[in-house]
């Protein structure tokens, strides 16, 4: 078991008490010297439910109550995408470090303001891309940096999933530009897009297409794009929430000497001899990774590592592994697809 003890006490406040917040709260409970002292959600019952297990002294329906409390060291923001910017800015202005859910924001200028403000105030801004802490991703990074794949030639992100009409219609925020900021790409596919830019590098130019093919929503349930990375490699992506024949979400990276595929916490290595090696880290860790169909089981191990890194960044006064700049890269790709819209090639 990896160490889950902080060098000093930290107190977290949480804004938003949905399914993702429940996972984060469960993670906090596993870390020694970390406590969840405040929680807010417009739905006060949801806030109370999480607070019950954490001895939280503040339970409110107003996020400002969490940010205003002096005992809170940092806030975790787990609310609809479109609210990330406003709440992060409020928290930073009130001196709180911020760990915000993915995506960092729905607009690039919002994300840049968040990054600038955190830097000026010498506060930590972390973004919850816990997949970067998967063993599969970390091993992939080692393989690529060690030259095992040769020259990186191409990457592909494929997230072909299904969400039913209720998923959009019964949610107060999904399917809208203002609150979700996109659909299948910004919500379902952002993790492998983040892993891709982490492993291959920044995207330079992109052509993208998006549509709401079957759902009555403003945003995308289908996207496709082709692009070129700064380093010259090429990439494509396909995302959807409109196909009932759902495939595993996959990031594939092709090098001159071999290829790798990342599916959650499973790493498949194709070597130059055509041999295939599958390393299932999820199974190794006792099945702590769920599928995207069951996000409640999403790796608490990776959540734990993410939270430890962010807390240690505060304690050691260093940047967290996934800081605002790192998280901006995937948002740039997402926004470029939406802006390209089959009409133009975007330079990022």
């Amino acid at each position, binding site marked *: 078991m990896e160490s889950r003890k902080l060098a000093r006490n930290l107190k977290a406040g949480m804004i938003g008490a949905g399914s993702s917040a429940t996972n984060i709260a469960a993670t906090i409970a596993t870390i020694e010297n970390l406590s969840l002292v405040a929680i807010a959600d417009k739905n006060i019952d949801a806030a109370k439910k999480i607070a019950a297990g954490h001895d939280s002294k503040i339970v409110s329906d107003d996020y400002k109550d969490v940010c205003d409390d002096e005992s809170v060291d940092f806030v975790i923001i787990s609310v609809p995408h479109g609210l990330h910017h406003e709440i992060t800015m409020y928290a930073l202005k009130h001196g709180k470090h911020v760990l915000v859910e993915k995506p960092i924001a729905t607009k690039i200028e919002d994300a840049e303001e968040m990054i600038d403000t955190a830097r000026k105030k010498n506060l930590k801004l972390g973004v919850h891309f816990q997949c970067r802490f998967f063993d599969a991703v970390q091993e992939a990074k080692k393989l690529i940096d060690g030259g095992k794949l040769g020259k990186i030639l191409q990457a592909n992100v494929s997230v072909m999933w299904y969400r039913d009409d209720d998923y959009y219609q019964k949610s107060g925020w999904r399917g809208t530009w203002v609150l979700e900021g996109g659909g299948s790409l910004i919500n379902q596919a952002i993790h492998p897009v983040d892993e891709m830019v982490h492993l291959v590098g920044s995207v330079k130019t992109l052509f993208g297409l998006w549509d709401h093919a079957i759902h009555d929503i403003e945003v995308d349930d289908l996207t496709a794009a082709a692009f070129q990375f700064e380093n010259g490699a090429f*990439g*494509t992506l396909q995302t959807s929430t*409109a*196909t009932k024949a759902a495939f595993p979400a996959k990031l594939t990276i092709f090098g001159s*000497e071999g290829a790798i595929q990342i599916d959650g916490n499973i790493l498949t290595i194709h070597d130059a001899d055509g041999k295939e090696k599958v390393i299932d880290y999820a199974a190794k860790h006792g099945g702590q990774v769920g599928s995207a169909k069951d996000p409640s089981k999403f790796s608490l191990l990776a959540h734990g590592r993410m939270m430890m890194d962010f807390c240690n960044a505060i304690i050691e006064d260093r940047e967290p592994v996934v800081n605002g700049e790192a998280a901006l890269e995937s948002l740039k790709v997402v926004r470029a697809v939406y802006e390209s819209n089959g009409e133009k090639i975007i330079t990022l």
Partner: protein
Amino acid sequence: MDSRARLAIAGAGWSARNIARGVEKAANLDIIAISNHDIVKARNLAREFSIPTTVDSHLDLCVMKDVEGIIISLPHRLHHPVALDALEHGKHVLVEKPIATSTNDAREMIQEASRRNLVLGVYHQNRFNDSTLLAKQMIDSGKLGKLLLAKIEVYLKRDGGYFTESKWRGRLNMEGGSALINQAIHDIDLALHLIGDVDLVAGFQSHLMHDIETEDNAVAAFKFTNGAFGTIQASISVKTPMGTSLTIHGTRGAIEIRKDSLIFFKGDGNIDRRDFAGERGISSKELKILSHGRLLQDFSNAIKEGRAPAITGTDGTRALELIESIYTSARKSTVMGVNHARAS
């Protein structure tokens, strides 16, 4: 009238051998002559496949009275002039893919064949694969629901010798391109055949590994007229040859089409896997030759019946139209409209 078509092959390379093997599977034609610049190669093939006449120029084939049609299996750039020579001499033409290295050249070939009332067919043999025929049925009968996306993946290994030992590959004026126009063209043709025409496209291409003028890596995204999207990923510089595939996603299901298999991913999570070589009890090489045989038989019947072949010049130009648009898009860094010529 003799019911067997008498054809000749112009070219005696690797691809001509596959054609000759395909002829053995077709019941209605004979190859009565073969030409090649390097006549030794032509003689070798002639001996192996009992072809009676060997010449060193396609022009000699053009003047042979008994030859009804010429199958063109030459470097891409030669497709156009050789086809025009053949048509001018009243020969029907079956041309290897790509039909030409530019759509302008292709259109000239189409016009010339039409004017002379000759059959012009394009050699996209994968249209006749068991997997393609089944995919077409499934899509047309609505098994996939509304079509959403076509994903073309081409990951092949073409090592140094493939280019360095060739007089024409890797050269822009002879091959006209590489990964897209030579390798990916098969699956691009299938996607257009199965889903329909494309309205717009943009892509990126370069030679990342090989010292060539043409591209060894390319990607593109495009939109079909029916609203579905498509992507192309093509590389011929990977040491791990993961092969070629076309995956078509619909609202109700998806199919992954390979040369000798088709996997049907159903909406309920079940998977149906068809392995056509296995089902026929033959090797995948033999299965490939069956498709050649079907195409050759169709072309010969078209000549005998005075009808259009399954893959006409216009139909066989569609993949080239998309590929040419990708090349232009990459060069100009702009989105390209794709104007598919319609069969008149």
